[in-house]
């Protein structure tokens, strides 16, 4: 079971919950479990082809999964996933 931290923008889709627990051996499976539990999150996180939406970043234990193995990145018990909107850096 992994913990998924929900950004403020997605909380209306998770009944206000800031973090939820979800099952899965990969990032894709964990996010899939989240989407089954809270269907309104699905179209915000995934594109039509089931890929991560372009402006959604997902971090596994602080690391961007796009630079790891994407949705195939393995998730261990107790791992933490964070969903965030992609943003340009601040003070540049």
């Amino acid at each position, binding site marked *: 079971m992994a913990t998924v931290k929900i*950004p*403020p*923008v*997605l909380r209306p889709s998770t009944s206000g919950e800031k973090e939820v627990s979800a099952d899965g051996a990969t990032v894709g499976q964990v996010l899939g479990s989240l989407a089954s539990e809270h269907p309104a999150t699905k179209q*915000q*996180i995934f594109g039509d082809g089931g890929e991560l*939406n*372009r*402006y*959604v970043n997902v*971090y596994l234990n*602080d*690391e*961007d999964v*796009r*630079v790891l193995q994407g949705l195939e990145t393995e998730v261990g018990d107790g791992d933490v996933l*964070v969903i*965030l*909107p*992609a*943003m*340009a*850096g*601040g*003070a*540049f």
Partner: protein
Amino acid sequence: MVLPPLQNRPCGGRYTDLVQAIGNTPLVELRRLSPRPGVRIWAKMESFNPTGSVKDRVARSLIEDAEEKGLIGPGQTILEPTSGNTGISLAMICSLKGYRLKVVMPENVTPERTQLLQMYGAEIVYSPGDQGSNGAVAMALEMAEADAGYYMPYQYGNPANPGAHYNGTAPEVLEELDGEVDAFVAGLGTGGTLMGNARRFKDELGDRVKIVAAEPMQGEPVQGLRSLDDGYIPPIIDLSLLDRKIFVTNSDAIVWTRKLLDEEGVFAGVSSGAIARVAHRIAGELDEGNVVFVVADDGWKYLSSGIYTKPIEEIEALESTLWW
């Protein structure tokens, strides 16, 4: 006349003006920060540039590129979205070269930035603070579209930005470490520092060098005002050049900014704290080698926030400020 031998190596050099003195920054080992005896952590002190940040390199490259291509001439007004450092660098360079500068920046940056920009004669247009850098970019793009008289270098999409690092920062590091670079860590903003250095290091060293991005995790008050569709990925960013991309929270960034100061005497800005934290993490995963990280700017612009002296819990607007 016989001159005394030079005691320090190298001498800082001799230049025809301040713009030419940009770059050639020191590389300093931070021994107290290394978690392992065989791993050496090196700080590339971009804070030693004339206006105190790595952006001096970028601004010079953007302006000289436009000059070489004949895109700007005397008296030209230059327009650029920036939350600070690039604007300050452009302001210094434009004042010396005789260009007018207008910068678009979020209203919630620290007051020192406003003063520095005004000091060099730049005009400031504020964008909504809750939209961060993305808001400044959007506003500047609209202004440029509405008035063809502006020249916008657009650091987020201009190859001259990474080019400054491909031809400057990376060769300097390679020279100082005789090509022995195992990991390079820098902050992810426009992507210029990471992409330019990454390409050069990969070209010269192949996969032996790991390129690591430290990324700001915006605080909830900033996140809360944004939708997932508002994202912005600077066009110069090519994620395939990165081996790792790790976020750092505002409070961790400040803890590490203090650590740099207290343990190594390095007075740096908040992004450098975040980058140092990631460099330390990467160093802990290696058995031996050289980890290089970028000290992107010095700390003067952040003094009013009290981050170097106050307990962390007393720092105002910790989560709603765009620290980097």
